[in-house]
């Protein structure tokens, strides 16, 4: 015990510290969300007033709609892109390492940089639309960034560019870990490549798929820097997302209580994603023990 003390210290001290931070600040935020705090935290009790004010605000309603659209589109599309890239890379092609690095590279770029670069690329007066116009196709239109109905898709595009490499890396690892005997057996049985993927390889990937979905979803829910740099919630307030609303309430409007209420609502949305995942993991483990 004493001999292993340094090991315990290195693991438990940081773990307890970060857990205490996480829990203490979450509780603190929950407490603030029930107080009339504005510029600075104050004590007092206003019940659910902050929550009803947030829920009734146009900003929050737009943010929720956008989250639903952005979350599902981003997760599904980045999953599909990642899977296709992984399958293509899995064909024992030359230069795989180089290509893999290229696809993974966007992940190393910060979201603020991604957002800023895409905001110039997608700006109709400066980016892709202007390039195509200058090449001679003057009726070409690609102005989603300033179209309030389509602007949310520009965030989907940038987010997919950023993180489909991550999905690809996980899927590729999954593809490589498929039992070689299984593949050989299928080959002997005369399965073609399409059938091989559909019937043999992809079904083994679904635990990885769920992991990717959960990670991407929690990213989608907490998206902040990307939107802030790309559209800053605009045009107007068309691309608001919950994290932007929280920041806006707390730091732009100096309404700490309402901002905290919005943050707690975000936490609840996250739990909606994470709790089923935890339950699923639990069931899996039970099954593994009984098998």
């Amino acid at each position: 015990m004493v001999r292993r003390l340094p090991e315990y210290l290195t693991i438990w001290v940081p773990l307890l510290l970060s857990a205490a931070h996480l829990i203490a600040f979450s509780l603190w935020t929950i407490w603030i969300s029930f107080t009339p705090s504005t510029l600075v935290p104050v004590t007092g009790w206003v019940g659910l007033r902050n929550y009803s004010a947030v829920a009734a605000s146009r900003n929050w309603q737009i943010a929720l709609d956008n989250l639903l659209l952005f979350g599902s589109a981003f997760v599904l599309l980045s999953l599909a892109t990642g899977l296709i890239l992984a399958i293509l890379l899995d064909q024992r092609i030359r230069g795989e390492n180089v290509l893999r690095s290229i696809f993974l590279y966007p992940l190393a770029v910060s979201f603020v940089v991604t957002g800023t670069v895409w905001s110039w690329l997608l700006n109709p007066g400066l980016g892709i639309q202007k390039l195509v116009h200058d090449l001679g196709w003057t009726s070409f239109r690609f102005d989603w960034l300033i179209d309030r109905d389509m602007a949310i898709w520009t965030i989907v595009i940038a987010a997919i560019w950023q993180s489909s490499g991550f999905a690809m890396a996980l899927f590729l690892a999954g593809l490589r870990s498929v039992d070689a005997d299984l593949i050989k057996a299928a080959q002997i049985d005369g399965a073609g490549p399409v059938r091989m993927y559909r019937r043999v390889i992809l079904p083994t990937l679904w635990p990885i798929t769920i992991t990717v979905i959960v990670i991407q979803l929690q990213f989608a829910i907490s998206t902040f820097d990307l939107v802030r740099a790309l559209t800053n919630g605009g045009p107007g307030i068309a691309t608001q997302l919950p994290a932007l609303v929280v920041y806006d309430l707390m730091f732009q409007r100096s309404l700490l209580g309402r901002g905290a209420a919005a943050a707690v609502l975000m936490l609840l949305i996250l739990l909606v994603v994470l709790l089923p995942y935890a339950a699923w993991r639990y069931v899996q483990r039970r099954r593994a023990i009984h098998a």
Partner: protein
Amino acid sequence: MPITTTRRRLLAGSAAALALPAFARAQGAVKPRLTAISQWSAGSDGAAITALGKRFEEKGGIWQHSPVPGFTTEMMNKLRAQIIAGDPPACSQLKGPEIAAWSKIAPTVDLDAVVAAAGYEKVVAPDLAKLHRPAGKWIALPLQIYSTNMLFLSKRAMDKAKADKIPVTWAEFNDLAEKMKSGGVAYPVANGGTRPDDGQKFEAALAGISPLAYRAAIMNLEKKALEGPEIKAAFVQVRKIADWMDPNVGAQHFSTNLKRFVDGDMGMMIMGGWAQGVLRNAGFKFEDFVIAPGPSDNGKPVFLLNADAFIFWQRKEADLQAGQTLMAQLVMDPAIQTMYSQITGSIPVRTDVDLSGEGWSDGQRRTAAALKDAIASNQAVLSLAHNMAQENGMTAAMIDVITEYVKNKTIKPEQAATRLADAVESAR
């Protein structure tokens, strides 16, 4: 007891430093030091505050300025953190009704004596003075004034429109915009896409249509005025302006388009006087543009006031207290205000500064004249878009409606007016 003597002498020195900084400095008892935070980090704003710091150092002080770049709210976040930590800066940028709001969360310095000694009270516009002594005592000092509804005209765009008359009313403004459009100016109104940018279009429209309605609806939040016909008329004018703007700007800052404005690709810009400093800092000449007061339907200038100020936070340290006194004296000094405004393009707070000399632009002289006229005719009002009329929460709620209206052309003016009144109700 040699130690006690020294301590007593030191105390006496600090007291002297408070009362008579110049004398105390000569004694070398305490060197004035100032910790300050502001959002002014770059461009003409950064240059101006750096110059102010130089003067502070020339007077024997230690200047410790930490700029927080970005919008004012970002600076406020740092200020909030420092106040909660019990370590406020000796002095920070803050303005408008926020001075009153923030002075409730931390003790501020009573500046009455130093303001009286400088005779500052007599030379500051009364409405403005009120904002800086929310509970009766001076706790903050205005530094410079801008009008947020100045009209910048591109000389080249005027040439294209074959026009040389500066528009006075909104009708004349609309005529000129049409002329520019048919004369080949791609976008008669130059603009950025930020929230304050959209807010300025609305406040300029409403105040220009009726300064009385502006005062009642925006500054006093009177329900009847908020539902009045002037609000709807202002939204109608804003839609016209929006139709003349370049929709491609996205969320860009107005300064991104200054070159296109000077080139005559864009015609008119409704912007605060600070755009002069930005234009000059970007290397453009006074010959490239004209500055005039924003459109006003009754012909008399309407002045949308925006004033930058410093608030002074209580500190125990003798050197910081001496620094605060020195800073206050500098901020009120006409020579310093002249230096500052000549760099940024603003006008001095002091109404007794003579702007006829070299170093002032025609635009600044016009702005100062407009302020005098506007005060005389009670048409100097406080800017909404730049947080002078209301506290941040209320301002943001109103700007939400305005910015959505500017970007979404399917919203009708009467719908926008209703939404504005609703937003005010729910933010109260």
